[in-house]
């Protein structure tokens, strides 16, 4: 299992379109990907789950990757967060 603590750096946070991109990317991997904010946990392959986290700008989430392709998934998912979900800011 790989665990990563990621700070949300895009201004709009984990909003609907960013969540859609995250779900789309997460669904390409076989491993289980969970995102935790406080006591709430979401399945990264379920967009509504992610939206329910209500994770805004500068909040921190714990992301866990568990399964056969966890290393690749962790790299790419972290990159998506760090790349502002492709939003530029």
């Amino acid at each position: 299992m790989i665990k990563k603590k990621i700070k949300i750096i895009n201004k709009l946070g984990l909003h609907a379109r960013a969540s859609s991109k995250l779900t789309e990317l997460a669904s390409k991997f076989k491993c289980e990907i969970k995102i935790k904010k406080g006591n709430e946990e979401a399945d990264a392959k379920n967009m509504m789950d992610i939206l329910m986290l209500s994770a805004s700008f500068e909040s921190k989430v714990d992301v866990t990757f568990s399964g056969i392709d966890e290393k690749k998934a962790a790299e790419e998912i972290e990159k998506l967060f760090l790349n502002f979900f492709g939003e530029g800011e």
Partner: protein
Amino acid sequence: MVGYLLVTHGEIGSSLADCVYHIFNKKISRLDCISINPTDDIDKKKIAISQKIKKNNSGDGVIIFTDIIGATPCNILKDFIIKNKVEVLTGVNAAMLIKALSSKNKDLNNIIQDCIEAAEENILQIDPND
């Protein structure tokens, strides 16, 4: 795959559709909208609804979303319900649509249950400190 139709008062449906197109960053061909307005000829609207159901049914059925139970759009739709093939859901919101359009391999009744759960779970009072 299940097809979808929004039949609502005015532009509620098309606005929700625009919202999900924006979120998914693409137009979704199996989703169509029909607006019902006060001066509309209801018989003509019924023909349009029938055509859209036919267009969006690939064999897995169609879910029709509407806004308010008991209102004209909802009442018109009762005539189109075919158990397990064409079903109508009221109280449409963006969460329901996102849930439905995220489902790719589920059958019509499973998607309906997911939509109802998504709608209920997403009506919340927001805590500013959360």
